[in-house]
């Protein structure tokens, strides 16, 4: 018996192997196919780009549509544009490009091309042609996953809400997420100054607002207060290295030595999900952080600060999980109102889908759970994305008031969620959702015009 079953098992094993290999190949094929649409990213076949997208993601979406044609050399560009766009030319004249140390002027055409009918909107690869080290460091961020600058476009376009919503609305996203494709998010055109990018304000156009109040928490910290008091007098032409600055700024810690890599030292990853801060990889990162802080502080003191950050996170998760349990409980008892299958079907949802399910928690796509949900789910979104991340940023940047405020808000939010959950349970089985949950000017428009 054993002699006859062994070959049969071997045959099965071959079958499993072949099916697996085919499935993997099909998976890769499907991803490649789905990225081939007019949009960008995993859902590129489901949306059409807006013209404005060209300015934020030029490699994908920019087409020159001006009426001008002809072949021009750098000095000719400067001559005409001194009258047409004098601000741009003034910036360029003040830049290193206009008077580089090696004497080889970098003119307009070096980046935009010579053929005016086919002008190029430069992106990071154009800058990387000369600034190869910085470009390579930047690209290296991709190895470390989210969050990072280099993966920011993927982060934006692969989010369900980017597909679901009108494209004019989500242009707001691309303005910041364009940091993945363009260098002028920090080195504003056409001066492209390193000194300017070293200052904390260079980051705050994007690093502000409820989910990432990096501006508020840094400026409220001892570091930030010192910067606000004295920073205007500091020599910002100096590299970001020990002894050059009296207090650290965003770039000093996150891009120390001018290394264009902000993802390699991340431990808690924005505070979006619970991680083990003591894995072997994170131990290496902790050493890097302690070395960083040791530019000014005692190493042991620095270790304690990091432990303080862990402690803050340890207090945050139980609050979030408690809220999540309430919501998942309501979901399993069919008490969320309107329920997932009663909400307006967006492109990524099958209308009348059999398995429509409310997204609760990080792994189910919580970061898109701010629209088209029931009120209690929105409450949890704000608790998780605003209050929690605000507290985390406070802890990471040395702003204890922000930590206290964030935790106070989380406690209040949790109480509210519990109370509302209790009310929903008392009300019992909800009625069928009223038609105005899936109708209305915006909701109706959004279903078909995104």
């Amino acid at each position, binding site marked *: 018996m054993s002699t006859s079953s062994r070959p049969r098992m071997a045959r099965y094993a071959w079958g499993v192997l072949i099916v697996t290999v085919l499935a993997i190949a099909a998976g890769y094929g499907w991803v490649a196919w789905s990225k081939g649409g007019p949009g960008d990213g995993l859902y590129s076949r489901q949306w059409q780009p807006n*013209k404005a997208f060209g*300015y934020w993601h030029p490699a994908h979406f920019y087409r020159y549509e*001006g009426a001008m044609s002809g072949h021009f050399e750098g000095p000719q560009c400067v001559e005409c544009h001194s009258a*047409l766009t004098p601000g741009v030319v003034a910036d360029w004249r003040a830049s290193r490009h206009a008077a580089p140390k090696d004497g080889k002027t970098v003119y307009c055409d070096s980046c935009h091309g010579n053929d005016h009918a086919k002008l190029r909107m430069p992106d990071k690869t154009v800058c990387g042609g000369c600034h190869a080290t910085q470009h390579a460091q930047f690209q290296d961020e991709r190895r470390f996953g989210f969050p990072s600058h280099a993966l920011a476009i993927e982060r934006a376009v692969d989010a369900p809400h980017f597909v679901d919503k009108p494209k004019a609305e989500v242009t707001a996203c691309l303005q910041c997420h364009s940091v993945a494709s363009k260098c002028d998010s920090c080195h504003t055109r056409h*001066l492209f100054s390193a000194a300017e990018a070293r200052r904390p304000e260079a980051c705050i156009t994007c690093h*502000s607002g409820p989910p990432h109040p990096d501006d508020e928490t840094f400026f409220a910290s001892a570091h930030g207060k010192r910067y606000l008091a004295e920073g205007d007098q500091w020599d910002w032409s100096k590299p970001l290295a020990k002894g050059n600055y009296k207090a650290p700024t965003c770039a000093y810690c996150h891009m120390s030595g001018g290394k264009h890599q902000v993802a390699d030292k991340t431990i808690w990853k924005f505070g979006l999900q619970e991680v083990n801060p003591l894995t072997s990889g994170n131990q290496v990162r902790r050493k890097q952080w302690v070395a960083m802080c040791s530019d000014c502080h005692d190493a042991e003191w620095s270790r304690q600060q990091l432990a303080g950050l862990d402690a803050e996170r340890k207090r945050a998760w139980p609050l979030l999980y408690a809220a999540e349990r309430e919501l998942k409980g309501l979901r399993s008892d069919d008490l969320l109102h309107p329920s997932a299958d009663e909400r307006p079907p967006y492109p990524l949802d099958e209308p009348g889908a059999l398995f429509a399910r409310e997204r609760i928690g990080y792994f189910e796509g919580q970061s898109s759970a701010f629209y088209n949900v029931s009120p209690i789910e929105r409450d949890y979104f704000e608790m998780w994305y605003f209050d929690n991340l605000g507290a985390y940023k406070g802890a990471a940047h040395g702003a204890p008031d922000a930590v206290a405020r964030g935790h106070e808000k989380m406690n209040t939010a949790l109480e509210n969620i519990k109370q509302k959950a209790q009310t929903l349970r008392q*009300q019992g089985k909800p009625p069928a959702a009223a038609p105005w949950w899936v109708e209305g*000017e915006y909701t109706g428009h959004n279903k078909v015009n995104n």
Partner: protein
Amino acid sequence: MRRLLAILLFFLGASAFAQPPAGPFTDAQCIACHGAESAEVHGWRLSKHGVLVRISTPGRAPGCVGCHTAAAHRPADAARMDQTCGRCHSPRYIATLRANGERMVEVGNMKQREALQLLTRARAEFSAAVLADMEAHYASLQKHLRNLRLGVAHQSPDYQWWHGHPALDGDLLRLKGAYDDLLRGHAAKSK
């Protein structure tokens, strides 16, 4: 006495707003009156223009009077704005971003009208006393719509997004939720 003074100051303030001062203004004066934490000033500060005014060469990017002119408090003149923006930006860039911004605001207006339609219905069905929640969500929505307009006008992504569109989504769905609560409460009572 103190109360009298307060009343006097209030009327002085009110009369000042009834007839906005004619200028000429400086950025510092605009910021002093509007308040550094107001959505208009804070949003602009966060924009690349606001950032460059703070840390870069003077005159490189516009402050308040750079676009609104020293006269301000007058209707905006689109042709003049084209010229102002055109110092640094191409006509295509200006036109594309303006059209996109107008569209972004219009999408916000749709959310507002959807909410107002429901609120109007509720106002006809229920007494004002029980509409407090819905009215509060609608007031919040109007604030966020203003943030959105300012975010678009000042090219401030944070005000377009976090203080704008997703905040409007929250107001809209909460207003719907509050209406639902009223209807469910009403149904329970009439049983």
